[in-house]
């Protein structure tokens, strides 16, 4: 069989979908078979991706002739909607991190859901496993809905692959929505818990708000151009110019309005302020889901989409020129979110929530980078972040798992295995988890030279500096400082020092199915940065000397961006904030028993801990009023009182009128007349009966008299 590269690209999303169908329909009773199918499917997609990527990466002019193939799907009026696949440099690098992280997460899930452990004593579907008794000990028990989990993540992976290989906004949106649906199913995986159900609903609804605007953007774009194909819109200078110069509503150009609408979709999906509220709550899902949704796939999809649409968002902009409205929006929201979320992360005690806010903050970085036109830097950070954040999430899952082991050992279920203040000293208990988490944490903090995060973050800062976006530069540098600080806080509290609880003392390293993926991801968390070392970087630049990533991804655009000159200020800044933050974090928490920030920040800490009360604000400002308006105003007042009331009043009036007609007219007048006629007839009958004597002579006499009177009347009264 000879498969063309296009065919293989088409086939990439299919294995996980097939796995979903097979597990749901046939193997959901068999755990071993189910996870084998799911992991096998992920591996198959991975291998296919490697094949496609080998082709892509080997081609130095790949951006000019990408892999593409499409067919018509829906005829609408004069235009046809095509759907198809496209692998160009941007989707190639995205595919690379998706393929790797998805496979790792699948493998990790086997261990995370306690495969090989006995069934729980009191476990129910919809609740996390509570442990089983074996030989008198309490041990971890297998997830009661083990097979179902693999089915769901299979569908999720299908959504992400579909999104990445799409050559048009429509199928991208399909993948986008499938992931939205799966995020609902997976965040609410333990549906027995109210908190999980609420979080699932919140995630779905919040991202949905963004999705609707995105859909409008898509509809508008299609209405303007008659196509949704990326190549036809984004690689066509004429179309872009036309969109940029077509005046539209609200004082914007068509490109500006479409760009903003699409960007709102990203605000929802990538959890940017003000739609960021769902992401931290989504930590209710199992940890592999957190890694999947919050690192590798769904939130990255939001950034990927705006990066994909960058030529449209920046239509009318040229390097160094004034930003378009959509870009300004992205720069402002991205930079603000980066700082905003980083400050919240400072005051969180749940190990996963710190990572959740860190994710929001890092996504803000990428959005801000796109906003100032640093296309390649944003894509670069997207890739490196996916690796090290997946690593960190999975690492935190491993920590929690280790802690749960301790909890089962002591039997004290009041100890929260996710609270970092219950940990400490885990480096000795869980060395593999510690070292890999450390690598991830360093990459997130941007530890100079060796970690991937340094190179991508540095490139964003350098770009902001070189193009004189000093405010963005300042805000991002400050967030980088905070990032390094809270990361070190997390590492110190979790792994360093001495155990603060008995449970931490009895924590246990997790199985190889979990630590294996951690080790592989940590390789990427370091090495992924080396592909993008700037040409002009001292010593290393000339040594590696090609900045492959920049040229490769840059060729996605019609006008590839220039490499910026080296400047010491951003470099010194990024090195300074990373090292400074790490050092401060270590010093502050090295021996801490309580949080020193609490004292230092006072009431501000309370605000941070409560996430600026945004959730409460939304509840009071939107959710409660919406319910009130729908129920009290729309339903009770308008629908039941006004409309139905009018109707009932009309009915009443009709009845009343009927009553009047009946009682005042019908009964006395019409009926009365009728009755009167009847009465009169009866009276007449009674009266006349008296003359009915039965004597024929008498009748004759009366007849004669009447006849004479008649004749007389006729001739003398009427005739003359």
């Amino acid at each position, binding site marked *: 069989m000879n498969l063309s590269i296009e065919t293989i690209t088409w086939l990439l999303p299919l294995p996980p979908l097939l796995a979903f169908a097979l597990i749901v329909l046939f193997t959901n009773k068999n755990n071993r078979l189910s996870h084998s199918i799911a992991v096998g499917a992920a591996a198959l997609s991975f291998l296919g991706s490697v094949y496609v990527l080998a082709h892509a990466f080997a081609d130095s002019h790949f951006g000019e002739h990408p892999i593409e193939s499409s067919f018509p799907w829906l005829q609408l009026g004069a235009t046809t909607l095509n759907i198809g696949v496209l692998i160009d440099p941007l989707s190639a690098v995205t595919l690379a991190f998706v393929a790797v992280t998805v496979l790792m997460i699948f493998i990790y899930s086997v261990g995370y859901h306690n495969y090989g452990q006995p069934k729980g004593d009191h476990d129910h579907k919809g609740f996390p496993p509570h442990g089983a008794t074996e030989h008198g000990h309490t041990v971890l028990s297998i997830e009661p809905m083990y097979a179902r989990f693999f089915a769901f993540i299979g569908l999720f992976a299908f959504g992400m692959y579909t999104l990445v290989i799409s050559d048009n906004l429509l199928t991208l949106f399909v993948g986008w929505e499938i992931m939205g649906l799966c995020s609902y199913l997976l965040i609410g995986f333990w549906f027995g818990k109210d908190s999980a159900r609420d979080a699932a609903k919140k995630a779905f609804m919040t991202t949905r708000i963004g999705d609707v605007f995105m859909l409008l953007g898509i509809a508008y774009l299609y209405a303007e151009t008659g196509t949704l194909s990326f190549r036809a819109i984004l690689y066509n200078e004429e179309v872009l110019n036309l969109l940029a110069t077509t005046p539209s509503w609200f004082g914007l150009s068509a490109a500006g309005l479409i760009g903003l609408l699409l960007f709102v979709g990203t605000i929802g999906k990538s959890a940017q302020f003000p739609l960021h509220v769902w992401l931290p709550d989504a930590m209710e899902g199992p940890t592999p889901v957190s890694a999947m949704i919050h690192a590798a796939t769904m939130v990255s999809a939001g950034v990927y989409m705006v990066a994909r649409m960058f030529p449209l968002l920046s239509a009318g902009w040229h390097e160094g020129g004034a930003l378009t409205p959509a870009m300004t929006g992205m720069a402002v929201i991205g930079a603000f979110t980066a700082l905003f979320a980083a400050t919240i992360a400072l005051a969180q005690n749940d190990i996963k929530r710190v990572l959740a806010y860190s994710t929001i903050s890092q996504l803000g970085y990428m959005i801000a980078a796109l906003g100032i036109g640093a296309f390649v830097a944003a894509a670069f950070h997207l890739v490196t972040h996916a690796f090290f954040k997946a690593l960190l999430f999975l690492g935190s899952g491993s920590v929690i798992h280790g802690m749960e082991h301790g909890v089962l050992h002591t039997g004290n279920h009041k100890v929260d295995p996710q609270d970092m203040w219950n940990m400490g000293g885990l480096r000795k208990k869980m060395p593999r988890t510690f070292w890999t988490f450390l690598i991830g944490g360093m990459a997130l903090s941007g530890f100079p030279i060796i970690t991937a995060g340094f190179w991508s973050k540095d490139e964003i800062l350098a770009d902001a500096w070189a193009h004189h976006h000093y405010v963005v530069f300042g805000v991002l540098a400050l967030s980088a400082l905070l990032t390094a600080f809270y990361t070190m806080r997390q590492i110190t509290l979790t792994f360093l020092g001495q155990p603060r609880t008995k449970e931490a003392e009895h924590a246990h390293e997790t199985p190889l199915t979990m630590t294996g993926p951690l080790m592989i991801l940590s390789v990427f968390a370091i090495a992924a940065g080396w592909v993008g070392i700037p040409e002009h970087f001292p010593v290393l630049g000339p040594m590696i000397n090609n900045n492959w990533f920049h040229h490769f991804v840059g060729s996605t655009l019609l006008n590839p961006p220039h490499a910026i000159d080296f400047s010491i200020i951003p470099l010194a800044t990024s090195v300074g904030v990373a090292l400074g933050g790490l050092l401060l974090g270590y010093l502050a928490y090295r021996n801490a028993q309580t949080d020193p920030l609490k004292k230092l920040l006072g009431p501000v800490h309370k605000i941070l801990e409560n996430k600026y009360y945004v959730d409460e604000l939304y509840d009071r400002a939107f959710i409660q009023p919406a319910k009130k308006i729908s*129920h009290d105003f729309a339903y009770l007042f308008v629908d039941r009182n006004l409309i139905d009331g009018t109707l009932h009043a009309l009915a009443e009036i009709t009845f009343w009128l009927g009553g009047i007609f009946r009682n005042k007219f019908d009964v006395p007048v019409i009926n009365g007349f009728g009755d009167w006629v009847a009465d009169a007839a009866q009276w007449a009958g009674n009266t006349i009966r008296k003359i009915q004597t039965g004597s024929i002579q008498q009748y004759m006499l009366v007849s004669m008299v009447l006849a004479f009177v008649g004749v007389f009347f006729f001739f003398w009264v009427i005739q003359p």
Partner: protein
Amino acid sequence: MAFLQFLNDWPVLSLITFLPAVGGMALLLIPGDRKDTIYKVALGLGAAVFLLSLLVYLGFEVEGARYQFIEKYNWLPQLGISYHVAVDGISAPLVLLTGIVMFTGVIISQRIDERPREFFAFLFLLATGVFGVFVALDMFALFFFYEIAVFPMYLLIAIWGWKQTREYAAMKLTMYLFIGSVVSLVGALAMYFSSGLKTFDMLALEGANFPPEFQILWFPFIFIGFAVLGGIFPFHNWSPDGHVAAPTAVSMFHAGVLMKLGAFAALRVGIMLLPEGAKFHLPWIILLTLVNVVYGAYIAMVQTDFKYVIGFSSVSHMGLVVMGFASLTPEGYIGAGVQMVSHGIMTALFFAVVGMIYDQTHTRELSKLGGMVQKMPFVTFAFIIGGLVSMGMPGLSGFVAEFPIFMGVWLSDKPWIAIVGAISIVITAAYIIRLIRRVFFGEFPAEFEGHVHDVKPSEKFALGLLTLVLILIGVLPGVIVPMVEAGVDHVFALLGGM
């Protein structure tokens, strides 16, 4: 399709239209206590009608003539009334929709225990009325069938409905619909007398060239009169009350098909015969539809009765159909045409599910339900698919319908209507998620243990058929969109190529 050529020699549309009524009469001949036989005969009749409607759908040539399967006989030639039937690209899918809803409605009516014979007879009479409206090309015949469709509804609700509200709801529904149709009838008579053609034939009236003032005067009467049956704000209130009070199969028919009748007649008689009036009035009518769409969704969100949620969601979704018409763009009309089918199937599915749950739990209060997925996994799956359709999830029919509608509204230079209307998508997601959560997930109430079981295979088949259509249209929109578009092209020829 070529192998269906033979249909052209058959009076297939008359067969579809009258078979249900005749069959329904025949049903009355079976002794009333042989319920099983009655159900089987009804099932066979439903299947036959469904197959015929499928044949019509498949036999319709998208590239062919505008009207196909034409039959025309004189009826009252002195008054210009004829029996003239045919289907075009817009009505052919609606005929199939009716066939599907009819068939599945009969399947799930096995639980009807009280006088099933009369129930099915009236249901089939209703179907005759509905088919008649969709295929009629003569205005008189259209009104005739329209009233036939409304009349059995009263009895079906008042006799077999939910005891608490059935009399009120039946009366309310009948009053609204009769008044609506009388208002339209006045407009129709105005057309008949002023055209000077002495004919009720709509093909002839299309060419009547009514003066613009006449059109502007009479369009609102005809359009709104019919749109009452489409649930247009503020004349929508008969619909949720009616849905709730009606027995399951009637709710399915009612929301699934009957509401389309209103929208369809408003298009056929209102927009197509009075295009100038349409162009003049629809720009403000779109505001009413916007209220429908958003307001209906909001109200659905706060209902505590399972069936009322679905009832108000129909108000919201039917608003989208009329919004598509009111956008006056081909995209909007294509979307509206697909939405009629998509919503019909989806809402039939919803009501079927509500009925299956109510029959076993005897409650529709959301606070009392929960955990149904444990007992009825397939029903849950089908409901979720329907829910996703109603949220406009791509890959399902709702998206194929709503995407063009919103696009049409953008194109009609009213972006803010599209934006406000799109809010409904979010609210829809909110109430659907709420339903799924409250009814199917969460804890299974202990009191239902032992009372609630999985549904019968026949019921699964019905749900499966409905679900399949929703997925099929979503994945392969080519099965319906070109056909609808062929019909829409003609509407725009009349509207003067907007």
